[in-house]
């Protein structure tokens, strides 16, 4: 298990991370969410040892990653662009990683490159943005490391490459391996993530499995008829996503309030499917859209 324990990190006199903690269990896809500048990339870079934490620690099966970097043979970080590999040819990268990571799956690497129409003799810098990400994700997955950290894998990638990337990630996941994705592509994460970790102000504000989230939070469309007061919604457990006249679209985190509203015959209530984006808007301080 990959365990992140109360990580703190200060950069340029700014507290970027102030007590981040979460766990990644085998077989899980964990979505790391947060607005721009909340410390997602810093978090991933600290996990993998690029940055040293000011306090706290990262352990992989109980071993401190920063004290024993050898354990990183099971922990791979794929940044949002393979800038460091731009001087290499694709095949060279494969051979280099095969020397570094003992479980490197050369067949998977070569087959996947072929599938995407990439030649091993091509230079990484000659690839398009989308192809670069497909390539670096393939390289990372081919290490067969048990924990793979992906930083904004779909940033600047077109729709087709995005689909290919997601399919690649899903196909590569085994019951022993786990993936942590820092991303803004909430629609996709909705379908693939098992667990969501929300970073806010450098802290892990909330952690949910997607199943828990769907049980705890309801998305409702409520129509207030016959002069019913919308003041009922002025509560911390309610977030108004949209209001058009008497029609309110809300997120609600209270069963009691839901029952109370359901029993009120002046209201028309319809339950809508909850999306991660709705929840993210609420928890990350989105103001909603009132008309």
């Amino acid at each position: 298990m990959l365990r992140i324990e109360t990580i703190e990190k200060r950069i340029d006199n700014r507290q970027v991370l102030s007590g981040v903690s979460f766990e990644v269990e085998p077989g899980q896809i964990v979505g790391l969410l947060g607005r721009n500048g909340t410390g997602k990339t810093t978090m991933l870079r600290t996990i993998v040892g690029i940055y040293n934490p000011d306090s706290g620690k990262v352990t992989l099966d109980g071993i401190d990653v920063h004290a024993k970097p050898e354990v990183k043979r099971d922990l791979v970080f794929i940044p949002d662009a393979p800038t460091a590999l731009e001087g290499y040819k694709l095949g060279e990268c494969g051979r280099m990683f095969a020397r570094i990571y003992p479980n490197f799956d050369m067949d998977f690497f070569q087959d996947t490159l072929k599938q995407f129409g990439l030649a091993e003799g091509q230079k990484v810098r000659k690839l398009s943005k989308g192809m670069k990400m497909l390539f670096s994700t393939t390289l990372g997955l081919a290490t067969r490391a048990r924990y793979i950290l992906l930083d904004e894998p779909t940033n600047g990638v077109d729709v087709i490459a995005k689909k290919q990337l997601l399919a690649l990630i899903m196909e590569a996941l085994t019951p022993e391996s786990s993936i942590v994705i820092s991303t803004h592509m909430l629609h996709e994460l909705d379908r693939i993530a098992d667990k969501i970790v929300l970073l806010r102000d450098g802290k892990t504000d909330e952690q949910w499995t997607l199943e828990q989230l769907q049980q705890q939070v309801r998305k409702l469309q409520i129509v207030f008829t016959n002069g019913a007061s919308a003041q009922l919604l002025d509560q911390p457990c309610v977030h108004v996503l949209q209001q058009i006249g008497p029609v309110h679209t809300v997120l609600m985190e209270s069963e009691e309030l839901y029952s109370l509203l359901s029993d009120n015959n002046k209201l028309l209530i319809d339950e809508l499917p909850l999306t991660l984006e709705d929840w993210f808007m609420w928890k990350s301080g989105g103001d909603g859209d009132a008309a």
Partner: protein
Amino acid sequence: MLPKIFDRGLWWKELRQARLMMVVMLIVGFFALPYTHIRYYFIMESGEIYGELMHIVRDLKETTAGFWIVEDLLSSFLSTMIVMSLILAVYQLGLERHGQKQEFNFSLPYSRNHIYLVKLFIGFGIVVASIMINVLLDIAMLIALDLGFMMMWESYLVYIGELLLLVISAYSIGMFVGTISGTLIAHITFTIVVIYYPEFLKWSFRTISYLYNISFLQMYNDYPLTTYFFDMKYDSYHSLIVLIVTIGLGVIHYRSNHAEYNGRWVVVPIWEKILIIGFTISSGLFFGVYVHYQHHSGTIGYGIGFGFGLLIGYVMIKLLNRLRVRF
């Protein structure tokens, strides 16, 4: 420990990164040493006894010790290889500060000590190989030129040994400077500072000791290692100490590198303070001497210049320190 050090993945990666410099150093070293004797050889082969070959003949007449006919050449070979080894250090560490190369290194399953030592060993290997291959080629040419019987081979080999140690220690200084520099420009700048700063100090101490009658500043030339890159008169003992100390300092500083500060002048916080203090004082020393010689000689003129220099230097370094440079 040994099998751990010789991890083939890390060695392959670092060798690939430095391979261009390996070729460049071999070629530059070739033109700095054996090329001259190869030219002489072909001149002799062609039967022409004139031209540049006359230099050899003249030297042979003037000195009895055959070894000294190659001393000037070896001396320029030494300077060339020192410059090349410093460029190699910049190539290995300064360039790594850009394009997220260091970030990539730190994400790999190796400790920072391990990464630094592998870089250092590869650098040593390149330096030794480029020197030894060219020296062996030169020896072959000296023998082919029928000058072998005149050479003092023992002195020659001792000189080569000292030269090797000196170049390796200079390279290690360059690597250590790289561990605290946050950009390519910073690495190059600080390397030049390390080479020329002792000369600058000598120049300013001369004025201060004369103006204020400070006797210990007059003995500047007697301080150990202050003119390391210029005199080259130190024996292997000094080079060995420099080598060991800079390896130790390099390992410690590389381990405490803050990759998040890449792009700044300095990536180790304590050296940021040293940079600010050093730059400010140096500016004071410079302006003190400048005002003393150009505008108002004497202690008052020096004092005014020194104070002004401190102020200007402090403001400048504070502004410079805020910059994040791309290269």
